């Protein structure tokens, strides 16, 4: 990623392969940062299958396309836009991993299984706090990324809000905004919060590729 970034003199997020790798990198950085606390280190075990699946997906043929001609957009604002949004996806991914860990442990505790007491997972209260913190961090990065995108020069003949990816990003922004507002104002917590975080990220994972392909702005 570093060498590619040097060669194109920009953040290496110009195609789906690079974008996926950048998200994986973001997730690994988050895992390593959270792993400073020994009781959160186990989060990496849950993140590994997600990282593996994303890595395999990134290796699919035709994802690493070589851009033809000069890029439509260039400059630091594009790098900020792409990097912020992909790091936000990484934060949302880690929040979803924490939420799934929460749901697993909550299920074991509710059913009074011995595994709930023998588990090496962090306590559910900590998982909920981590998940909540990562959603807020991801939301801030997503907002900054979208604002950076809005500041880019408009291509002739194309309307931003007619683009599928822009509409999808706005929908994602509203979804996470709703999760944060519900938690803040309406005590969305525990299982319901975890389902919401995991659900929105599942939507993100399942629709990310499709909307990218349909977008004339992001997949010219």
């Amino acid at each position, binding site marked *: 990623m570093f060498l590619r970034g040097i060669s194109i003199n920009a953040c290496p997020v110009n195609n789906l392969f690079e974008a996926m790798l950048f998200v994986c990198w973001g997730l690994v950085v988050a895992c390593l940062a959270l792993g400073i606390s020994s009781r959160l280190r186990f989060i990496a075990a849950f993140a590994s299958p997600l990282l593996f699946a994303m890595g395999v997906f990134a290796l699919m043929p035709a994802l690493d396309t070589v851009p033809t001609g000069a890029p439509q957009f260039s400059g630091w604002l594009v790098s900020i836009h792409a990097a912020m949004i992909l790091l936000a996806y990484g934060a949302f991914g880690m929040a979803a991993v924490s939420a799934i860990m929460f749901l697993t442990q909550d299920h074991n505790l*509710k059913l009074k299984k011995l595994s709930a007491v023998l588990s090496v997972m962090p306590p559910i209260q900590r998982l909920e706090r981590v998940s909540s913190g990562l959603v807020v961090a991801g939301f801030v990065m997503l907002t900054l990324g979208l604002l950076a995108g809005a500041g880019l020069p408009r291509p002739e003949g194309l309307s931003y809000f007619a683009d599928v990816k822009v509409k999808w990003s706005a929908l994602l922004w509203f979804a996470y905004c709703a999760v944060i507002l519900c938690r803040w104002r309406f*005590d969305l917590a525990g*299982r319901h919060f975890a389902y919401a975080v995991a659900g929105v990220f599942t939507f993100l994972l399942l629709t990310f590729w499709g909307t990218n392909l349909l977008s004339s702005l992001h997949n010219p």
Partner: protein
Amino acid sequence: MIVALGLSHHSSPVELRERFAFAESRIPEALQILRRSGNIEEAVILSTCNRVEIYAVAGDSDASRGFSTVREFLSEFHKHEAPHGPEFYTLTEPDSLRHLFRVAAGLDSMVMGETEILGQLKQAYQVALENGHTGARLNRAFQRAFQAAKQIRTETKIQRGCVSVASAAVGLAEHIFNSLADQEVLVIGAGDTSEKTARALLSRGARGVVVANRTGERSEALAATLGGRAIPFENWELEMERLDIVISSTSSPGYVLDRARLEPILKRRHGRALLLIDIAVPRDIDPSINLLDSVYLYNVDDLQGIADDSLRQRREEIERCEAIISDRLQGLLVAHSLREGGLFFQDAPTRA
């Protein structure tokens, strides 16, 4: 020859064990008296609430002389005749060494697999070592026993889980709350098990205890014992809005807490997790409460079930622990016989 003799919770009641217990400060003096007899070359005294044991190196030819020396020493030191029955066990090699290894690993403990005994054994060995009462034989045996205990702790599940109702409650609390240091415990009703559970939570770092009981004096007494505070029984609902761990053990014939009563409290708690431990029989808390989000309800059977499952799992591990001990013991005995024959100066290797 290494011999082991003494009394433990398996062989004798506490009334007998306490007569032969050694005060920590008197152990160096006791070791000196024991070795002064001339029949004991090396010795370690282990004295805990569950066992009084002496590990000693007696003359190789006659272990019985070593046993009688130690027996006389015990009778004289404690001014009480040492028993001759099965309550006072005497072991010779290799049983004495196997016993030492089992004690170090917690396999001979009242709570199987507990780790406190290893610390106590290390302390007993250290006292003997520092006062010059151990030599090559006991040093090697104790070092091997500590290594075996470490291997057992890392390679088996003998120390995992919670084997009592109180420890199961602590285990649950530790898997729910970020830190027990932030938690105060509300005790409704003042029973014996609720006291033990509250005490276990306090020992693991809980910040304090609030006691609500219908009888004010009992409430005050329990609060004083646990270093907490007593509140009028009617105020427990108010406290539940603030506190996250509740132990209930009233003698009420019906439910003290049901969904209709809890749901308004939960709204005021803003989604914080709540651990309810219902130790009362008949039960104090409506079991359907467990269906509510962020509420974890355990009754005494649930906690006992967790403790029983843990104990079963520990028992299943015994075979693996015994295999490790046999392996380590074999290595020690082979090394010893080679050394006796003057063939090697290094310990014989053991299987990994």
